[in-house]
């Protein structure tokens, strides 16, 4: 099932907006975008996930990849994730290093 990924810069924030389903098939598209985002050098990478209806552990791997790609002082925010998606992130313990936010 498809995933659409868009990348933009708003001030000092790189915004990645995801819509669709994030699984083993679609996560490589997210990976590619993360690589581009990491190169922008902004202080925050904001991943908007309100449009993601499903996320498997492949999506967690992408978030870990994002943490590895950005500099230590860059904040990664996941914004608007639906409850099962944010629960998956918390189950993996990634909420200790990624900021989970409703908006």
């Amino acid at each position, binding site marked *: 099932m498809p995933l659409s990924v868009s990348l933009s810069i708003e001030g000092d924030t790189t915004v990645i907006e995801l819509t669709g389903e994030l699984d083993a098939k679609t996560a490589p598209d997210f990976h590619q975008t993360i690589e581009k985002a990491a190169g922008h050098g902004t202080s925050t990478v904001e991943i908007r996930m309100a449009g993601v209806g499903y996320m498997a552990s492949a999506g967690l791997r992408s978030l870990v990849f994002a943490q590895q790609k950005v500099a230590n002082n860059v904040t990664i925010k996941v914004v608007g994730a639906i409850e*099962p998606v944010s629960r998956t992130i918390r189950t993996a*313990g990634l909420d200790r290093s990624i900021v989970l936010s409703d908006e």
Partner: protein
Amino acid sequence: MTTVTDMAELARSSSLLEVPATVGALGDIAAFVLRLAGRAGLGKGATYRIRLAVDELATNIVMHGYRCGDGRITVRGRSGPGGVQITIEDAAPAFDPVEGRLPPAPGVPPEDRRIGGLGIHLALTSVDEFSYAHRDGRNISTLTVKAEETDRCPPRP
């Protein structure tokens, strides 16, 4: 209280899906599971949990069982008012998911963890019942999610 036995009695009809063990087939497996969940009238939460569990195990079979080589995955499903039961079979080397799970380790930074084992952990904590057998050279995992909306995967305190 609904038991698996009750559910089996309620679910007279079963469905079967056989797909090549490829990442591309994961969508077919998801659609199969969602159809069964719909037929059972599962709520949103339970539907999400059974889909996630089957997806994680199937992804693991593709990536690590067959190591992206040739192979097939057989998925059987039964649904009834009590819930959904899915059996996943493959002929990859023997792998017991219960042995291969990797719960989040408090002392290990997330970026240093094996996410694959975490996927199995997600699968096992998403279902109400799980069993594994290795018979005739085949891995057979059986997953059950009951119709009741119970949160089997609560967030870390």
